[in-house]
């Protein structure tokens, strides 16, 4: 009897201690920030564990390093410093949604201006919530392509390079290599894609472009996670396409490259997409990856002006978020820098219009839709060559639509395309607007006015 009593008391004691700890930690987190009145809160939904961690970690490092740079060196955005915290999503929808709900209210006086879902599935789950909460979701180089139409998707921004633009630019690069768009006729282009909504996003534009230019579009799915692709590449060996467009993610990419080499398909005729195209994707494939191509809106490199500044003020001073300095200037690291630049410039644009104070979602939406990163502004930022010129509007939430093609030489990436390879946006936009209209019809959404 007394044993049970002791057990019960111990349970009670343990529960009391737990409750006290929780209470104290809540109090502590509130008290800690009570005196920072004018800061801009910018929550970061990140993934540092799980199957995709190695792809994510350099991205957050790029973002955090740039934010730190803005705070330390430029004193914040017009004097308002950035304050951020991280929330682990494991690239999972449920956790992404929980993160979003947790942070959307803002922190000590500062609302949330922009939410970066950092995950294609998460962005789709948050589309409607973001409209209800009026917080723009910025999905750079991923996300739903129809969201380009801001009249139907007021708070979704697939900025810089949507998946449709990615497919189209890859085709245009192949065309350039072949000697012109007329030479595309009769070519066989196989797309090896991750069998998920992310991978399937390029099926429609490729089918359309195949019809337009006369090449043969073959689609070969790879079931998640893609660690055994012998059957798929055996098929490729049978079909003998001229080019392979690799839309992979995570382990699928190095396995694809290795398997391609195994069956003897020339690796320099494989073009990886954005999320198959960073150092972290090709290094595990080893020596056979030499010659592999990738298309990306974030070219690799640590010699851009902004990188030199980051190196001087952040990396060399030990303030970088990077644990592995090899990733400085990698494609994914630079994607983080690009994301941070766009976020900061959008906030700056909003501040110019609404006044210098912590920006909220609606103001940030205005800022994004009036973002104009011209060549001149990019030069001021030190991002020429790193970021393409961007001009967004209500009807164009993408604003860019071009990528560079890189080639892996075993040690690093080298740019092999002639600058920025533009996509056939004019051809694709009508189709995109059609899909947006269909979505609007299904949901009963009234189109916004195209002015803001």
């Amino acid at each position, binding site marked *: 009897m007394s044993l049970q009593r002791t057990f019960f008391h111990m349970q009670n004691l343990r529960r009391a201690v737990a409750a006290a700890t929780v209470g104290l930690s809540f109090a502590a987190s509130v008290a800690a920030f009570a005196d920072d009145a004018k800061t801009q809160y910018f929550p970061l939904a990140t993934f540092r564990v799980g199957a995709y961690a190695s792809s994510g970690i350099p991205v957050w490092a790029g973002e955090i390093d740039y934010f730190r740079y803005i705070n330390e060196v430029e004193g914040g955005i017009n004097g308002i410093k950035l304050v951020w915290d991280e929330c682990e999503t494991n690239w999972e929808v449920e956790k992404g949604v929980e993160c979003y709900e947790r942070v959307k209210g803002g922190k000590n006086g500062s609302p949330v201006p922009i939410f970066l879902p950092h995950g294609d599935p998460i962005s789709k789950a948050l589309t409607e919530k973001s409209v209800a909460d009026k917080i723009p979701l910025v999905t750079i180089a991923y996300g739903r392509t129809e969201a380009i139409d801001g009249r139907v998707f007021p708070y979704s921004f697939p900025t810089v390079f949507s998946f449709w633009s990615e497919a189209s630019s890859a085709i245009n690069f192949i065309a350039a290599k072949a000697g012109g768009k007329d030479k595309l006729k009769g070519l066989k282009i196989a797309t090896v894609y991750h*069998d998920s909504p992310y991978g399937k996003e390029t099926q429609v534009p490729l089918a359309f472009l195949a019809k337009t230019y006369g090449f043969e579009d073959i689609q070969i*799915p790879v079931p998640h996670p893609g660690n055994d692709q012998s059957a798929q590449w*055996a098929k490729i060996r049978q079909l003998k396409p001229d080019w392979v467009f690799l839309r992979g993610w*995570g382990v699928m990419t*190095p396995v694809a490259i290795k398997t391609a080499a195994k*069956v003897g398909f020339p690796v320099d005729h494989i073009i990886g997409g954005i999320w198959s195209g960073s150092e972290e994707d090709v*290094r*595990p*494939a080893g020596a*056979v990856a030499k010659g592999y191509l990738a298309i990306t809106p974030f070219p690799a490199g640590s010699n851009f002006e902004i990188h030199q500044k980051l190196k001087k003020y952040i990396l060399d001073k030990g303030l970088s978020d990077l644990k592995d300095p090899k990733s400085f200037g990698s494609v994914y690291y630079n994607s983080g820098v690009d994301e941070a630049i766009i976020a900061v410039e959008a906030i700056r644009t909003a501040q110019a219009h609404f006044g210098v104070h912590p920006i909220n979602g609606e103001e940030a939406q205005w800022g994004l839709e009036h973002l104009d990163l011209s060549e001149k502004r990019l030069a001021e930022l030190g991002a020429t060559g790193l970021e393409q010129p961007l001009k967004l509007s209500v009807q164009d939430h993408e604003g860019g639509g071009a990528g560079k093609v890189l080639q892996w030489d075993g040690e690093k990436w080298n740019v092999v395309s002639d600058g920025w390879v533009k996509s056939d946006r004019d051809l694709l936009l009508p189709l995109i607007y059609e899909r947006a209209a269909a979505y609007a019809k299904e949901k009963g959404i009234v189109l916004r006015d195209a002015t803001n």
Partner: protein
Amino acid sequence: MNFFVETLVGGLLAGVMYSLVAIGFVLVFKASGVFNFAQGSMVLCAALTFVTLREKNIDFWLAALITLAIMVAIAIAVERVVLRPLVNQPQITLFMATLGLSFVIEGLSQIAMGASVHELDLGIVDTPIKFGDIQVSQFDLVAAATAGVLVVALSIFFSKTRVGISLRAIADDPQAALSIGIRLQTLWQIVWGVAGFVSLVAGLLWGARQGVQFALTLVVLKALPVLIIGGFTSITGAIVGGLIVGAGDSLAEIYLGGLLGGSVSTWFAYALAVIFLLIRPAGLFGEAAIERI
């Protein structure tokens, strides 16, 4: 026709890789009667440890030895901490415990050694070898040879050494084995140790094939159909089951996939396993369970 043969051969060789992982399961099942879901994370742990040591420029064989020691230590710890307290529980509880264990091993491995993807270079150049018109991968052949050697070694171990014979005695009649003085605990630890060694070999080969990272743990999902088809208690069964699953998967992906639209390999091996279960519940080489009322 050539394409068919190539697909078949590629599939068989991939199947051997699955068998390697399955053998680890068979060992544990023979000793402890449990399907050790944590085997996948043990493979990851072995591969990660090896790669981390190699990246510190430690000699290949020394790194292998150190990794082996660590794996054996883990195996013994698992046996004492997880399996012994649960010794009389139903199989599903044991399975759930090994699932929890897989989380523990994964979490701790990644804390200790990080989450980035590593390249594992075993020194095997993977250019295809041509037999007439048919291409075969050099790497896969080496893997198949390794598996073959492992099977022979384990067969000798189980039929000729004292440990092996004791194990078979325990499997046949635990009470009798105990009564003649066979020490259960020591035996379990030895077998789990050997399973750890098998994890190391599997980890090295799989890591070399696809890079060392988290998805390595998913090989366990392919091992289960292999075991169902081959029998949970037979090493030969693991090899045969692996070949069947590997070949079946490859051929299904190409030919069935063409009809149905691809990615059938996610469920085909399991469908095959179900058909085997309906016809031969104990697997091709397994022991039929006698049901008592």
